[in-house]
């Protein structure tokens, strides 16, 4: 039972001042084992804050990040799953499933986490699953101003992943979940 927090596109301090208070009250240290961040934090203070939540922090570089040494893509293995991380502004057209699927095949991962569109999505395709945690602060994106703050928490338990989607809609936190299993023979998620 491994809890992995996926979030990104915070754009602090340029486009947003801070995470919504309701999100901050839920994110306490000690519960989460890993954090994967799609990028665009943008400042060091956010990096330090995320480090206090969990020491195991993985970040991919977004185009506005002040820290230039984050990698463009990253892969890691948690339990039975291989996860891939990339900000997403490199993949054109932005948010296009086929192109992201191509990236996923290149990285050879079961779950690809990308951002940049600031919209939560969860796609499945033959190669695996693509998750976009959206923007945790609700910052405006290159595409739209209408953004709901959201992030994702994955509970990896053996061959099964439960993805909990946290969204702030009209001031209230709404949580949904998505279940999927990895079949041990093929990469595809069901």
């Amino acid at each position, binding site marked *: *039972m491994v*809890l992995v927090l996926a979030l990104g596109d915070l754009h602090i301090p340029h486009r947003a001042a801070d995470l919504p208070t309701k999100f901050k*009250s*839920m*994110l*306490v240290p*000690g*519960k989460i084992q890993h954090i994967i961040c799609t990028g665009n934090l943008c400042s060091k203070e956010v990096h330090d804050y995320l480090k206090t939540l969990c020491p195991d922090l993985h970040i991919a570089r977004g185009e506005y990040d002040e820290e230039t040494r984050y990698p463009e893509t990253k892969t890691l293995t948690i339990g039975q799953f291989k996860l891939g991380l990339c900000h997403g502004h490199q993949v054109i057209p932005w948010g296009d*499933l086929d192109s992201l699927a191509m990236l996923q095949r290149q990285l050879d991962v079961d779950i690809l986490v990308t951002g940049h569109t600031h919209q939560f*999505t*969860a*796609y*499945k*395709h*033959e190669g695996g*699953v693509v998750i976009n945690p959206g923007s945790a602060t609700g910052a405006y994106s290159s595409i739209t101003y209408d953004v709901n703050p959201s992030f994702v*928490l994955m*509970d990896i*338990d053996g061959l*099964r992943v*439960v*993805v*909990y*989607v*946290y969204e702030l809609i009209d001031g209230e936190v709404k*949580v*949904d*979940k*998505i*279940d*999927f*299993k990895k*079949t041990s023979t*093929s990469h*595809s*998620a*069901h």
Partner: protein
Amino acid sequence: MMKKRVPDWLNSSLWSSNPPPSDDHQNLRYSTTTNATATTTSSTITTSTPSTEDRSVDPPVPVPPPPMIEDPPEPQRIQDARVDNGAKDHNGTSGLPSADDISRQAQLMAMLSRKVIDILELRRIACQGIPDGAGIRSAVWKLLLGYLPLDRGLWSSELTKKRSQYKHFKEELLMNPSEITRRMYSSPSYDTDESKSESRGLLSRSEIPHEEHPLSLGKTSVWNQFFQDSEIIEQIDRDVKRTHPDMHFFSGDSQFAKSNQEALKSILIIFAKLNPGVRYVQGMNEILAPLFYVFKNDPDEENVAFAEADTFFCFVELLSGFRDNFCQQLDNSVVGIRSTITRLSQLLKEHDEELWRHLEVTTKVNPQFYAFRWITLLLTQEFNFADSLHIWDTLLSDPEGPQETLLRICCAMLILIRRRLLAGDFTSNLKLLQNYPSTNISHLLYVANKLRLQSV
């Protein structure tokens, strides 16, 4: 007692300062071993430092006896068994079993083989100590704690019932939240449909009932409870790892030690979850350890396999008398630990006013400094493991309950070292009491028993 000058700290005449009257049957054990002890104690004390360090030798593990349905074994066989185990005794009982030991063992085995156990008789005999050689301590303790019913015919049904109950507890309470939510809200739809694996598209989202998500702060949330419990579980884990680090049974890298630690942990976690009022308090692991050790060393294979379940219920039973010691809010109340310590103080005043006055008034050694650990941990930390098993024989067999006997033994402990205490000041007395010197346990228990007969 004779008025002597301040004695040499290593003076062993202390131990034989109270020769027993010959008509008292209860110290037959003491009298037969007195000579052996008096001559060997000087060597014991001078070698006490190396021998206590030699604690990596485990206390005597009972040699499996012949099945209980047979006649009690002849003294010949027991003698051989005892000689093997005798070499491992650190102090107190000498290598050869006394005639009294053998007869007591025979009596106990005879009683255990009856159809209906006479509990009063059993208590009376067990009070004098259960010999190590016969491997009956496990069964006797289970009877004394009320885990096994007195009617032998009911044993197997009772045991199966309790053991399956424990298994049920384990399954229910030791699950992590992922599994719990999976079982509660299982959706069969995603399990089927392997054929759809080639399709693409958005993954469907489903609602979460009752705020059951991992970051939930709700009181009823399974996840929230899990994270709150994880603090206690960490504490239990740390304490279990520190239990008896000198014994191979409990500590070390062997598979055996690790599985024992896991069993102790499970018991303590389940106890904490079932008793939200007390939860887990540091020290409970020390009370649990002797129980588990004895039950795991039961000569009967089946009992060994279920030692964890048996230990759990006996632990609950044992702790039920002492719960109040562990509850912080009750510290200052009539049933709390403070009042128990006051009772010990009163007992000492009653039996040895001079010592009481010297300790509490002159040198101001507050009994809380030493008696707290003696009482809450049932003397497991003051003596070596084998000796504390002997003390527990007496504690558990008292029909009045262990509390009274415990106080008498503590009082006896103080009285036995009165000379040193009377000669010492605050620092040396405190040091002495917090590192109680090794002593002849039978003598200690004899003195404790005498206190019962002397008081009103």
